[in-house]
């Protein structure tokens, strides 16, 4: 069974500082990996995804993530955080090939941005 761990429940960074949100997954083959952002009262918005190929993936809003197979990780990064980035971030894994199509989500990391 696939699973996702986001070790950090809550992170606070200063505006303009760099950010890294951690994600570790468990899956038997090469997974599909996703990062979603959820603002209060809003639905989930896709930031970026990894299916295959280049392990460094660029997303929207200046975010990027790197797939590291040896560490079973897919950490999200941003070089300079903006106050509008404050939200809940979810990492998710999906099955590649003919596996289960639904996503398995981590429990999320809440990002707070200090002025």
């Amino acid at each position, binding site marked *: 069974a696939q699973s996702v761990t986001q070790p950090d429940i809550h992170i606070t960074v200063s505006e303009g500082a760099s950010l890294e949100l951690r994600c570790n997954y468990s899956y038997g083959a090469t997974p599909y990996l996703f990062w979603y952002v959820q603002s209060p009262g809003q*639905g989930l918005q896709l930031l970026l995804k990894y299916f295959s190929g280049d392990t460094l993936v660029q997303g929207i809003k200046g975010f990027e993530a790197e797939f590291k197979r040896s560490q079973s990780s897919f950490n999200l990064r941003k070089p300079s955080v903006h106050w509008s980035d404050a939200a809940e971030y979810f990492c998710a894994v999906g099955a590649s090939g003919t596996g289960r*199509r639904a*996503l398995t989500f981590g429990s*999320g990391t809440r990002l707070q941005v200090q002025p």
Partner: protein
Amino acid sequence: GAGVSQTPSNKVTEKGKYVELRCDPISGHTALYWYRQSLGQGPEFLIYFQGTGAADDSGLPNDRFFAVRPEGSVSTLKIQRTERGDSAVYLCASSRDNTEAFFGQGTRLTVV
């Protein structure tokens, strides 16, 4: 419509009552998913439709939960004999090719 639409946005019901939650996916998306998100948690999978049929209902917690998608577009999630533990945000997502899923804003269900 431009995105996934879920109605109602909020639903308060009494314990033991029956509720229906509606999802209108993006036009042309054949895959449709229901998830449930409890407070402080990530979304948990409930059921997946490919067209009209439920391809995977392994996430439904018990037989009080049921979902349909009779014409391969709009889907309804039905909950019988609601319990306080059913209180959560119910999210719907659709996908054209099972690679990227687009989420609606959810229905917040409160059982009192």
